[in-house]
């Protein structure tokens, strides 16, 4: 029987973490809703299983997404995760083939060299020892990068690394100690027995030349075992819990479980899956344009994990969704943030560190309704005129009358029977309230607007505001087709309803967050622009588009910080000196107008200018709202 007291810390840590992870998984599984449980069972015993295994290999071990975003950072993560995995795998095989018997206890694989110091001198054994050394070198190279990154993030191509809390630092130190301790322990043992391959062998014989290698090796084996044990025991209270949790997350996601509106097992698993890699910090415009560095998703996840008050973080976000696109773990960051907004998370209960091991569940304590209706003043008897096409400008559009004039011109030119739902300024669509986490209040506005839309008998609803568009499409239960005006104009062009001239103007297009990442509308607006003007590419297209800074989702940000983001974004978009910066959102237009010297226009304004005059005269049937002034923006 090969045994030595120094393996005890490692064994305690290993069994502790195994039981902890199994227990935690059972608790999470039990916390799922019934349909989600069925989904997970079906996913586990079905097609999704293979896909999950593949994803675990590609993302949890190779870290493909991080490699794509940032190769150096990706290499660091890959060498630690994949390298460690290979070390365990090959170590186990090594112990199985060359050890005293088959199917060994895990510690014999981890401390193989200690129990078999003579191993690896010649033949197949030497090849295997070479392989093990190579893997160790692979890990150590990543570790070196990790240490450098901690002190100078720029070296690995990051603007900023994540701030750590005290416990994370202890775990980090033990993690950093593991592999150097193994290297030195193995080297000293190899040096004493004249074995080992190119790394441990060479280092070992050099160390043995002036040190008592045999006596010194033993304390280093203790250090190796202790750092492993400490790391395992610290794991549940630090960010490193993401290592086991991410596997669970991948299975859940591939089984079709989504975040939803309330916190539950899935959102909790997502929160614990965050590895604090910091890629979201680099993506965040509030960081690189306004210098706000403490509200990024990684800090939100950490605050939730530590049971801290999250309200100042949760509300201080533009919800532009740039981080969602780049998160290598695929956490639905914005939905998790929305859950935090909906919940009143005022109390903080993190008082002692032991509590971390038995964290309380997030309780969905939704905002109580005030008892009385907030919007009881909205007229119950207002009626809408009958029309085929209904135009809803939205609050923001009322601040940019140029868009209303242009849409009127286009709708008039189309010859369709249309009516203007909120000509005198109707009620808000409800989205800003939803973004503030007040769904119940928003529902009152939604009901009011739904009634008006239903009364009009329209089959098509056109809106100029992406914020309204998103809520009309997702949260209104209406039997009408909802168009954003860019889609509607494209439809008019495609069906040859409205003829447009080509304007000789060079423009760039800014995709609004709510329309692009929020609703997946990228191509239609660009098609319209290409039809009437010359469209230049920017560095920030589609999923990578910027936020104008005006986002209604952020209630906390100050005016000057908004302005910083707007100026930065406008400067990036107009780097190629276009004549016009085109967007398709009244709020973006308004925000950019004061942030750049370049002309800013909405997509419908350039389309309206391109509408052939004769067509307007021919088709101008609308008696209700005919246009007197001409649209002229260039």
């Amino acid at each position, binding site marked *: 029987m090969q045994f030595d007291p120094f393996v005890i810390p490692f064994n305690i840590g290993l069994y502790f973490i195994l039981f902890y992870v199994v227990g935690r998984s059972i608790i999470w599984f039990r916390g799922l809703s019934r349909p989600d449980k069925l989904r997970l069972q079906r996913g586990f015993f079905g097609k999704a299983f293979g896909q999950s295994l593949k994803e675990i290999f590609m993302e949890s071990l190779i870290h493909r997404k991080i490699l794509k975003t940032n190769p150096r950072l990706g290499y660091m993560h890959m060498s630690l995760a994949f390298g460690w995995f290979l070390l365990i795998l090959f170590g186990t095989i090594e112990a199985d083939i060359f050890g005293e018997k088959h199917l060994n206890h895990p510690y014999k694989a981890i401390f193989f060299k200690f129990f078999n110091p003579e191993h690896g001198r010649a033949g197949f054994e030497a090849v295997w020892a070479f392989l093990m050394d190579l893997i160790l070198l692979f890990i150590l190279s990543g570790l070196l990068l990790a240490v450098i990154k901690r002190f100078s993030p720029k070296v690995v191509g990051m603007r900023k690394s994540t701030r750590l809390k005290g416990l994370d630092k202890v775990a980090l130190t033990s993690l950093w100690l593991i592999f150097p301790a193994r290297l030195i322990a193995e080297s000293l043992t190899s040096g004493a027995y004249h074995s080992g391959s190119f790394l441990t062998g060479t280092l070992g014989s050099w160390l043995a030349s002036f040190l008592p290698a045999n006596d010194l090796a033993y304390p280093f084996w203790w250090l190796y075992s202790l750092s492993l044990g400490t790391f395992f025991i610290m794991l549940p209270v630090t960010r490193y819990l993401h290592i086991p949790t991410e596997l669970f997350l991948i299975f859940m996601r591939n089984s079709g479980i989504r975040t939803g509106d309330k916190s539950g097992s899935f959102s909790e698993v997502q929160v614990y899956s965050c590895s604090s890699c910091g890629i979201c910090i680099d993506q965040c415009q509030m960081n690189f344009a306004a210098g706000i560095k403490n509200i990024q998703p990684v800090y939100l996840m950490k605050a939730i994990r530590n049971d801290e008050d999250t309200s100042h973080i949760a509300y201080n976000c533009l919800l532009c969704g740039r981080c969602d696109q780049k998160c290598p773990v695929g956490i639905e960051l914005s939905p998790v943030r929305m859950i935090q907004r909906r919940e009143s998370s005022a109390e903080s209960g993190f008082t002692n560190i032991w509590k971390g091991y038995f964290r309380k569940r997030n309780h969905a304590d939704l905002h109580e309704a005030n008892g009385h209706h907030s919007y009881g003043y909205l007229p119950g008897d207002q009626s809408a005129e009958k029309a085929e096409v209904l135009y809803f400008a939205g609050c923001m559009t009322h601040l940019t009358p140029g868009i209303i004039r242009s849409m009127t011109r286009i709708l008039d030119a189309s010859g369709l029977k249309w009516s203007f739902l909120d000509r005198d300024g109707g009620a808000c669509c409800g989205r800003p309230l939803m973004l503030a986490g007040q769904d119940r209040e928003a529902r009152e506005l939604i009901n009011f607007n739904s009634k008006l839309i239903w009364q009009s008998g329209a089959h098509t609803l056109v809106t100029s505001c992406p914020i309204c568009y998103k809520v009309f499409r997702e949260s209104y239960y209406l039997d009408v087709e909802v168009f954003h005006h860019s889609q509607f104009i494209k439809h008019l062009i495609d069906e040859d309803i409205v003829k447009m001239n080509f304007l000789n103007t060079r423009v760039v297009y800014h995709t609004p967050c709510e329309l692009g990442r929020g609703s997946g509308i990228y191509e239609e607006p660009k098609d319209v622009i290409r039809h009437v003007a010359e469209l230049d590419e920017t560095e920030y297209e589609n999923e990578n588009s910027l936020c104008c800074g005006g986002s209604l989702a952020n209630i906390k940000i*100050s005016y000057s910080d908004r302005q910083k983001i707007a100026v930065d974004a406008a400067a990036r978009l107009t780097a190629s000196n276009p004549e016009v910066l085109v967007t398709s959102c009244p709020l973006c237009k308004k925000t950019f107008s004061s942030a750049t010297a370049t002309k800013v226009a909405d997509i419908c304004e350039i389309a309206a200018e391109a509408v052939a005059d004769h067509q307007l005269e021919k088709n101008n049937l609308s008696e209700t709202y005919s246009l007197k002034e001409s649209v002229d923006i260039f």
Partner: protein
Amino acid sequence: MDKFGFTLSKARVIDLDSNDRSIAEYILRNEPSFRLCIECGCCASTCTAGAYTPFSLRELQILLKRGENEKVRTNIGKCMLCGKCSLVCPRGVNTRNIIELAKKAFKNQETHAI
């Protein structure tokens, strides 16, 4: 004064002894831009809710600063958070945060947590 036929108009009296400035102070602590307001009334004139009902952020913030909270308490829930007021504000006051903070302060006051 009464003898001479002059009385103080009730509406013009600001009684700082009985007024409660705690709500305004709570807002000021958390949203310093509350101080910047020049009471121009742009917010009230563009207000979406104001088109339907007498709701004026200008009036409410004056009342808050005076510490006359009752009218604010009953009216603050009328806001739809649409954000037009913060876009038209010439002083860059973060109006929506003021409204949310006021709501929170009233809620805290009810539960004696302030």
